[in-house]
């Protein structure tokens, strides 16, 4: 017998407060919980970046409040070198894991994937709830390292061996701090695997009548592809973290070779391989950054289409490009290791797929840009951030041309060029994807509109501000400014300090602009204008249900899908669009591809 009630474990709406708001099985609540987690993480990560930037511009600056947080780390409020590195490590870890993997994928995906396929919920709501609470626990474990032992680990979010495995003699935070980091990230991996489980089975098995795979909106495709990537990537990082924990607490030597001397003492481990960690980490690490960007690609495409009032030149090609990015992402990871001491022939082997991965990325950008041709582009906060995403993705992407080549990497590895590159694509483009998604979907999630004026202020300050911060990073890198330096003492970097000061000013202003966004979120949540069911005149299934959707998404009626997801530019009874779930048959104005 085939069981269709696998769609929802619960058969009636939850009633208790705990079940409704805390331990909820409803994917929409879980999505909002993930969003709140990502928001909190982003604010903490941003505050950390402010502290770092102030110190980089003014090495002796006394930062208020820091002495209380860590009297050892910041005596008199002035950052010690180790505390700078500890804050930097936490900034990277929090942002990459708890913001960029969480918001575009876990938050929006959990909320909207089931609705976009027409389902009542995900097939395993208890695993879904567990996925959030495990991720939340991971976050608590990570943040606890601020307050335990001698602080968080200082080895960067990449946690290279043997620094990550030797223990506290290697530096503050390298004992308990590393163990907590590893536990946190292992838990995070488990949480995301539980999430991927739900995403994949939702996409493949719960699509409603008429919803073929090719009729899925681009955001749904992006979440599906991302969850496949996560499956392969997180299940490799987790065992690597476990092996590091064993090196710490069980005396094993997976990553620590023999003959190391720290503080004139022989390190007791022997025989391990330091490059092994790099291979395991980057096998996860490179797909991870595509996990951070692919949902943004899907979300931005989805939003742009609604605001262009016409579909993309080819939906199919965009899907293939996202798939190509996902597959290629596993073949390129060695480009992080060109000068690591690995076999130089491997460097060439990794370099070619890295150059080839430019092609699907370029096709994606070209399709976006040339789909704008002939459109009726609407300008609002969501579309501004979506268009800004394209600009940022281009800027961040072209610096990849340089880093993909091992010979050029000799000059640019470990410089601010790399930092500029990944901040452009992750710290800005992916964030813009999150903002675009927020402005677009907030009405559906909360029943209220966000303030458009504040949204535009947020956009302008962010767009100009992030260019002012991160474009100069590339110039600094070209001159050889080394990253992860808490203070600039090398002779040749001295003349660059004024540039860092300007960047810091831009960073603080841009940071302040994000507070406008937070204010807008909170204010609109309670006092925003009530939103109609379909404020953007959009076509996908989430817009054919109530705002906000009822607990079972469609109020007991399963929609039937009659159309491709982006029927815009047609003449219908409701306007220039036909919703996916509408039985109305219309002729299109232009060719469908």
């Amino acid at each position, binding site marked *: 017998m085939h069981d269709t009630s696998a769609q929802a474990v619960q058969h009636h709406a939850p009633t208790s407060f705990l079940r409704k708001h805390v331990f909820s099985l409803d994917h929409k609540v879980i999505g909002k919980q993930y969003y709140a987690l990502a928001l909190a993480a982003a604010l903490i990560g941003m505050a950390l970046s402010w502290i770092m930037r102030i110190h980089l511009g003014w090495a002796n600056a006394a930062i208020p409040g820091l002495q209380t947080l860590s009297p050892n780390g910041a005596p008199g409020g002035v950052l010690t070198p180790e505390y700078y590195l500890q804050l930097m490590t936490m900034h990277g870890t929090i942002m990459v894991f708890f913001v960029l993997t969480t918001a575009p994928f876990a938050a929006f995906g959990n909320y909207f994937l089931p609705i976009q396929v027409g389902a009542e919920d995900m097939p395993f709501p208890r695993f879904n709830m567990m996925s959030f609470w495990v991720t939340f626990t991971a976050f608590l474990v990570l943040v606890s390292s601020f307050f335990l032992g001698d602080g968080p680990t200082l080895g960067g979010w990449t946690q290279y061996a043997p620094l990550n495995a030797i223990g506290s003699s290697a530096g503050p935070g390298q004992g308990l701090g590393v163990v907590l980091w590893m536990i946190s990230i292992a838990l995070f991996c488990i949480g995301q695997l539980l999430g991927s489980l739900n995403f994949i089975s939702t996409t493949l098995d719960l699509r409603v009548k008429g919803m073929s795979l090719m009729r899925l909106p681009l955001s749904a495709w992006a979440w599906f592809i991302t969850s496949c990537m996560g499956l392969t990537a997180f299940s490799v990082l987790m065992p690597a973290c476990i092996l590091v924990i064993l090196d710490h607490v069980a005396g094993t030597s997976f990553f620590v070779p023999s003959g190391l001397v720290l503080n004139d003492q022989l390190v007791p481990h022997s025989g391990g391989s330091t490059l092994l960690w790099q291979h395991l980490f980057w096998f996860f690490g490179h797909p991870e950054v595509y996990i951070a960007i692919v949902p943004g690609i899907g979300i931005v495409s989805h939003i742009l289409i609604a605001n262009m009032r016409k579909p993309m030149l080819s939906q199919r090609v965009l899907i293939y490009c996202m798939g190509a990015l996902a597959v290629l992402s596993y073949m390129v990871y060695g480009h992080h290791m060109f000068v690591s001491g690995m076999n130089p022939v491997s460097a060439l082997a990794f370099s070619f797929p890295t150059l080839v991965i430019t092609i699907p990325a370029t096709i994606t950008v070209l399709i976006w840009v040339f789909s704008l041709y*002939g459109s009726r582009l609407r300008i609002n906060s969501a579309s501004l951030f979506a268009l800004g995403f394209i600009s940022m993705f281009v800027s961040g992407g*072209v610096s990849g041309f340089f880093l993909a080549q091992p010979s050029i990497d000799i000059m640019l590895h470990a410089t601010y060029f790399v930092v500029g590159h990944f901040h452009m694509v992750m710290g800005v483009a992916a964030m813009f994807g999150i903002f675009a998604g927020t402005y677009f979907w907030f009405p559906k999630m909360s029943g209220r509109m966000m303030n458009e004026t504040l949204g535009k202020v947020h956009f302008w300050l962010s767009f100009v501000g992030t260019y002012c911060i991160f474009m100069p990073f590339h110039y600094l890198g070209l001159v050889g400014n080394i990253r992860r330096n808490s203070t600039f003492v090398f002779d040749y970097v001295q003349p660059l300090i004024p540039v860092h000061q300007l960047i810091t000013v831009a960073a603080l202003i841009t940071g302040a602009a994000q507070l406008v966004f937070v204010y807008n979120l909170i204010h609109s949540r309670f006092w925003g204008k009530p939103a109609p069911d379909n404020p953007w005149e959009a076509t996908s299934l989430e817009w054919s249900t109530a705002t906000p959707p009822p607990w079972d998404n469609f109020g007991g009626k399963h929609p039937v899908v009659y159309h491709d997801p982006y029927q815009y530019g047609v003449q219908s009874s409701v306007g220039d669009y036909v919703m996916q779930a509408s039985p109305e048959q219309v002729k299109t104005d232009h060719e469908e591809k």
Partner: protein
Amino acid sequence: MGKFFAITILVIAILSAIPIVMHTWEAPADISTHGHLIDEQMSETMAEAGISFLAAQLLLAFFIWQFSNRGTESKLKSFPGGAKALVIAALLVVGVEVLALGVFGVKAWADVYLTPPSASAMPIQVQAGQFAFYFRYPGPDGKFGAIHPERINEGSQEFFGLDKEHDVESRDDIVTAEMAIPVNKEIHLLMHAKDVGHSFFVRELRVQQDFVPGLDVSLHFTATKIGRYEIVCTQLCGLGHYNMKAYLDVLSNDDFNEWMKKEAAMQ
């Protein structure tokens, strides 16, 4: 607002390109024999990246300008050629471009990493440890004495853990805190990590290579200009990473011999 956005993109793109075009942000002059290939790759890549960057941003700006906030009565159009034309363009233009970069870049890489040092190269060992570089010259016997990790003691300045009593080769080894090399002489740099990962970077010499604990790696290069250059650590190695550097002196032959005599006397 759409048109204003288009202008903003244009302005930002142009402003971003200006520092590059004016050559105000570049690595210092190359003093190595292999570096010109790297610099050529860099220039070519910069040209291609720059053109791609400007073209994409300009097109984006242009289309936003043309098609934003048009009335609801305006006709929707589709780019002639459609997605197929774009895919072909991307494959041809970008594909060929990046693969060309890759292919031509192989020589620049191979010159550094896939060629062996010549037999007459001067061997120098560099050891990286928290948070300093130390250098060792083999002395007249041309051989390095063994490193005994258990004998390493920074307090007593025994940086390499040499056993001068039992190891004959280590007796004439010369350990220094600065690296000096003769100009126009190929150097074979043997890299040893004492504790955690570090990296060796000299901008002017166009070399950067990580130290790998447990694995001794090596580099070879030839410096062509006399001068004093900074060696900096580029692999996060702990709290003193920001401060970890040494100086490289490229000297004339005579000056170098003088220096060696002085250092040998100080052992």
